[in-house]
């Protein structure tokens, strides 16, 4: 599991920026997926209404979460599944651990699931002596190398062919090759053995449908379908917000999710799972458990400012367009949730103060909102988080982040409120700026608190006269 360490944002961002392999991978990913997704949005038969409508579907589901979840639970129980509600990460992990221990589970295969990362499932199972294998190729590579993900959907894009070749030779004992199909075959063979011996399969849930009582998983490798049908027990982890009312709405959102995630009309494997194998099913698990997890989501639900965030389906479309993510990569965010979505979700789930840099470290360019299949207004929520950090908020246990910055801005406000003082200060700064190092009218080093600016760029000097002075002078000339 990736450790939650958003407080190292700046430090880890530096590492990402300095890594040429990562830079190339991120550039390629954004050039490819960003425009391709936009093109798909614009070519849907539903037209431009599709995204706002899907947003409404999600919003309606979130507003009626209690009813939908209880309908889903009833339906799943009706299919013979077992439904658990977990209030916290620890509870969710305990439930899964208990199922594993009661059934003497030795080996677990997992389909890619963000929420299991969020609750720290792998580590907890491994502590019990259970072998846990990620089966998504990217996740498997990272599990072997012991690294955190770079991207929500494409976690291992920062790994070169050569690194993977070396990793496989070291960890799987396969002959050295840099040929991607051969490497994939090696992984496939290694994983196939795990699939066959696993006694528990764990998956996430992309989106559940209340009406039919199914969860849906989407993958492009078929690994989730294998993880959930071969072992005798299937445990599905579901964030409590991942639900819609009916099949029609679910279909629309799954299509948008595929567009956002991988610029596909629909993912390669879309599986509907509603319970254990029925008598007339030729395969499938004997037991099906659905663990529905709160872990801080009720708190988000209760806050009208952030409720919209629960509409998110974690497709990662915002990562593929974000200029900041495009430079620093996913590991900088210190959370399973990275990029613009992570900058909002991580503070809300793991603490706003510890994630302060995630809230403030964006440009507010709005590319994320534009790329989101559900048009979620991430910039608005980033601003709301920043406001909490400057004022503090007892409801979210937020302490004011910086008294110094608060003082600076209250000083700024007094200044801004009075043009005379404003002009006097400008006069003073105009005199003082000549003391600063400059080249051809451009200041090359600014003092604190502006020194960051001149770390990598220059700053034009204040003009000899403000526009307002010039305007007044011209007007007086005209009038006389």
């Amino acid at each position, binding site marked *: 599991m990736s450790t939650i360490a958003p407080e190292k944002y*700046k430090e880890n*961002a530096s590492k990402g*920026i300095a890594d040429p392999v990562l830079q190339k991978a991120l550039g390629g990913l954004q050039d490819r997926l960003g425009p391709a997704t936009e093109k798909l949005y614009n070519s849907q038969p539903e037209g431009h209404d599709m995204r706002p409508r899907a947003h409404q579907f999600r919003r309606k589901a979130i507003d009626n979460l209690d009813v939908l979840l209880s309908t889903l639970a009833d339906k799943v129980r009706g299919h013979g599944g077992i439904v658990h509600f977990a209030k916290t990460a620890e509870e969710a992990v305990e439930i899964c651990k208990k199922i594993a221990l009661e059934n003497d589970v030795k080996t677990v295969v997992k389909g890619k699931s963000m929420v299991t990362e969020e609750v720290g499932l792998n580590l907890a199972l491994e502590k019990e002596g259970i072998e846990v294998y990620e089966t998504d190729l990217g996740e498997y590579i990272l599990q072997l190398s012991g690294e955190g993900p770079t991207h929500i959907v494409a976690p291992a894009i920062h790994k070169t062919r050569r690194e993977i070749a070396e990793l496989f030779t070291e960890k799987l004992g396969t002959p050295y090759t840099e040929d991607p199909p051969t490497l994939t075959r090696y992984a496939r063979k290694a994983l196939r053995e795990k699939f066959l011996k696993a006694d528990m399969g764990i998956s996430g849930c992309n989106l559940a449908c209340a009406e039919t009582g199914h969860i849906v998983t989407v993958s492009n490798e078929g690994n989730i379908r294998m993880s959930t049908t071969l072992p005798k027990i299937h445990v599905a982890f579901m964030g409590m917000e991942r639900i819609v009312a009916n099949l029609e709405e679910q279909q629309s959102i799954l299509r948008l999710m595929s567009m956002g995630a991988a610029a596909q009309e629909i993912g390669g494997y879309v599986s509907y799972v509603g319970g254990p194998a029925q008598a007339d099913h030729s395969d499938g698990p004997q037991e099906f458990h659905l663990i529905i997890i709160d872990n801080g989501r009720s708190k988000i639900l209760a806050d009208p400012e952030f409720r919209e965030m629960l509409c998110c389906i974690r497709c990662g479309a915002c990562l593929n367009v974000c*200029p*900041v993510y*495009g*430079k*620093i990569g996913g590991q900088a965010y210190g959370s399973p949730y990275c990029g613009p979505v992570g900058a909002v979700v991580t503070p809300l789930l793991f603490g706003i103060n510890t994630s302060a*840099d995630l*809230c*403030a*470290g*964006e*440009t*507010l*360019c*709005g*590319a994320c909102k534009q790329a989101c299949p559900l048009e979620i207004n991430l910039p*608005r929520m980033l*601003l709301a988080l*920043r*406001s*909490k*950090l*400057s*004022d503090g908020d007892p409801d979210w246990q937020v302490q004011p982040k910086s008294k110094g*910055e*608060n003082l600076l*801005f*209250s000083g*700024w*406000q007094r*200044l*801004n*409120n009075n*043009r005379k003082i*404003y002009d006097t200060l*400008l006069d003073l700064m105009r005199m003082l700026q000549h003391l600063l190092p400059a*080249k051809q009218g*451009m200041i*090359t080093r600014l003092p604190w608190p*502006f*020194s*960051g*600016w001149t*770390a*990598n*760029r*220059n*700053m*034009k000097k*204040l*003009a000899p*006269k*403000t*526009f*307002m002075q*010039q*305007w*007044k002078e011209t007007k007086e000339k005209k009038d006389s």
Partner: protein
Amino acid sequence: MNKPEKVTLFIQCLVDTVFPETGAAMVTVLERLGLKLDCPSNQTCCGQPAFNAGHQREARAAAVKFLDIFEDAEVIVCPSGSCVNMVRNHYLELFADDPKMLVRAQAVSMKIYEFTEFLVDVLGVESVGARFPHKVTYHASCHLNRFLGVDRQPRTLLAHIDDMTLIEMKDADTCCGFGGTFAVKYSEISGAVLEEKVQNIVDSGAEVVTGCDMGCLMNIQGMLSRKNIPIEVKHIAQLLAEK
């Protein structure tokens, strides 16, 4: 909207203090179109830096001052998309819980325009008769493009400048990395984003980079200057004022 009797200028604080030539160029263009101008000289910043950094109390104070100064204007025009976005959209959020102020903010919200938006959408002007015999590339500022939906307007005006070659840079609508105080607080990240923007500008082969927001242009100019790259930075008003 008919041609207004009088246009009230809202001069972005950066234009006022660092780039007054941009304001002067806007005045030239508007006066050539026969408009009467007014410019309240007690105006200061609209509050956006405070708002974006999370200091809503201070932003609200700036907004109150702005409304006091500008609410009697017939129409307000500003050479910055980002400041117009602040007044048009964010003031409404700042006063969401204050019905009295909200009404005032709404009234101003409806009569404030970004400069190119005003020329094209309000006045119906596509050509101002400018001539600028140079190769130019256009940076589409984020707040202008995404939050005001203004992109066609500046491009229309640029397309009608005589003898000018407009070269589209790669990712013209990608952020330059400015982001207000972000550029100072997270200068390394900001610099990395800016680096790519500057490279795309250089690769375009243009002699001049233009845009509708001095915040972004100041950022771009800062790195061009640091790297001694001889590409000029000019606000679109400066190009439109050229004869």
